[in-house]
């Protein structure tokens, strides 16, 4: 058992992820990679075996902070994917180097991914398009901004996105770029859909069947778009695809505090009223025309392709976790 203490900076990052000081799938993923990097750098021991145990405990600590954000375990799995290889090493500095390199690789990759998505996605946007977006997604914004910078005159409808009004942040970001933005209430999405050419949204998690888990309200926007024959694009980095869903795991929908919807006085005065506040909902693949990732555009039903290509190793791990005992490894 390792007795090495967890660096303070790592604890701080874990806490910031937990109380949502660090938010957004991409930022969470990069923060976790950074925490693993710091943990490796600060490691003072000399035993490779102990180092592996230590890194595993750090990984576990980080993953437990936000059980529903898939980018987090994916980032952690990416950085620690070489632990098996490390176990064959004898030189501790080489072991540390491997982890640090992987962490840096992930952070750089993640930063470039959003930009790459913008570049690829912008090709699907035409001059004069009216785009509807929901909540605040850096990948979706990247697509819109790239298209605008190519000289395509786009107009954007941004939903205000109750209960936390992330639509205000989206509107502000797009307005700063000089883009024409109209803010609408969430209830107006079907009415507005007849003026819209394309829907561009982000994703929190993408399941093995291509279903997209994103900010609550996304699924009814996709439904309204489908009804109006408006195309729906989901902009998402590959680390938002969930390997666990390949083995049948369900994606847990986080339910947030009702105080985001009403104030405390409301509860005191209306004791019989329940307020439900799911943060996400599930958009079925049939309402999504394409998922735009940094490695290309795929139909949602091809999500498994991304999962096998990018997370084949992780899926193998999940198989081991759930049913197959280690004694069956030779299969």
């Amino acid at each position, binding site marked *: 058992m390792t007795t090495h203490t967890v660096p303070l900076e790592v604890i701080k990052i874990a806490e910031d992820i937990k109380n949502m000081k660090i938010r957004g799938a991409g930022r969470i993923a990069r923060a976790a990679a950074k925490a693993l990097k710091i943990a490796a750098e600060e490691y003072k021991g000399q035993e490779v075996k102990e180092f592996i145990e230590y890194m595993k405990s750090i990984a576990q600590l980080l993953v437990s902070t936000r059980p529903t954000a898939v980018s987090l375990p994916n980032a952690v799995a990416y950085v620690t994917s070489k632990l098996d290889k490390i176990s064959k090493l004898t030189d501790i500095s080489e072991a540390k180097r491997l982890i640090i390199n992987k962490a840096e690789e992930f952070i750089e990759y993640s930063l470039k991914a959003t930009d790459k998505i913008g570049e690829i996605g912008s090709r699907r946007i035409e001059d004069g398009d009216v785009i509807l977006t929901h909540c605040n997604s850096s990948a979706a914004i990247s697509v819109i901004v790239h298209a605008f910078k190519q000289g395509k005159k786009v107009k954007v409808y941004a939903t205000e996105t*109750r209960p936390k009004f992330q639509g205000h942040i989206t509107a502000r970001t797009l307005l700063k770029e000089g883009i024409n933005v109209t803010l609408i209430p*969430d*209830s107006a999405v079907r009415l507005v859909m007849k003026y819209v050419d394309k829907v561009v949204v982000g994703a929190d998690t993408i399941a093995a069947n291509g279903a997209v888990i994103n900010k609550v309200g996304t699924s009814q926007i996709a439904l309204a778009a489908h009804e109006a024959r408006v195309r729906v694009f989901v902009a998402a980095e590959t680390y938002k695809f969930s390997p666990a869903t390949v083995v049948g795991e369900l994606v847990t929908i986080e339910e947030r505090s009702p105080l985001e919807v009403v104030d405390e006085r409301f509860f005191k005065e209306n004791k019989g009223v329940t307020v439900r506040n799911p943060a996400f909902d599930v958009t079925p693949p049939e309402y999504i025309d394409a998922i735009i990732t940094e490695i290309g555009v795929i139909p949602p039903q091809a999500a498994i392709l991304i999962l096998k290509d990018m997370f084949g190793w992780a899926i193998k791990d999940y198989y081991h976790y759930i049913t197959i005992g280690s004694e069956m490894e030779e299969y």
Partner: protein
Amino acid sequence: MYHNKIMKLIDDVALKIGYGEIMGSTESVEFMLDNMKYIISVANNVKDLAQYVTTLVSKSIKARPTSAMLINSSRQILIKLDELLDKETPLDKLKRELPKLIDDISVKAKMAIDQAARIASHRIVDGDHIMTISYSRSVLRTLDYAIMDGKKIKVTILESRPGGEGIIVAKILDKKGIPTTLIVDSAARFFVKNVTKVLMGAEAVAANGAVINKVGSSILALNAHEARVRVFVVAGINKFSLETVFGELVDIPTAKEETLLPPDKRKEIGDNLKVFIPLVDVTPPEYIDAIITDKGVIAPQAVPFLLKEVYGALPPKLPEIKDLIAKILSKVQ
């Protein structure tokens, strides 16, 4: 001087009828009728009376052009006024006859709601979980009857922005002892699969069976349709629009920016920000399972049938509001 005061009152009434301060369309009509009785009682001569009544009608309708009940009630009053003027009815008789009609319209409107709600309550079964949107007196009455009949029901209410009437409705339902869940408008699709029925009121029912109601109604109906949950609209036939095919609403009434954004917010987001805050939307007949009226339950596509039965002809031979007003004013010149 006195004349100006009345005109000011009329403007205030119209302002309140225009969406916002008064919630339901029924309430706004009652408010208009109450004020009409008052201005009739203070008119000094026939000409003033005609002018006050017609001004109140035209300004109120302009403020809330989607309210079929407002238009239908106004038409009834204007037709009566026109008839009375033809007979050169003196002022004191006008002051007796018109309020009598106004009271009659109010009472009948209440009875229509009660009757529609009574019928609608028969469609609710013990254990139903109902999803609804915004504030509708017809829907609330329906729930009252269902409870009176001993049916145990649960309600999920949408917050219903802009306006947020859902929060007020949640309070009302809580006082009635109905287990109530409040959700944001975006969560309608997430929860609709757990409910057994969707119930909504109407601002107007168009000739093709399309229903004009609080914005968000149409996405709620679409969600329900997708989840194979039945959608019922409770509306007396005084909500049936005889004027236009509302399915092609050209001018959707919109709310003021403050209903969506607190005053300091715009500065924070950006001065170039535009807002679009529609107040109503149109639910196509194919997403509505039945319209429950005081005359019985009908398929939305059967609206013309009911109109013909009630008004004797299709299209009903009724004068337009603006023609009536012109006729009345020409008679008092």
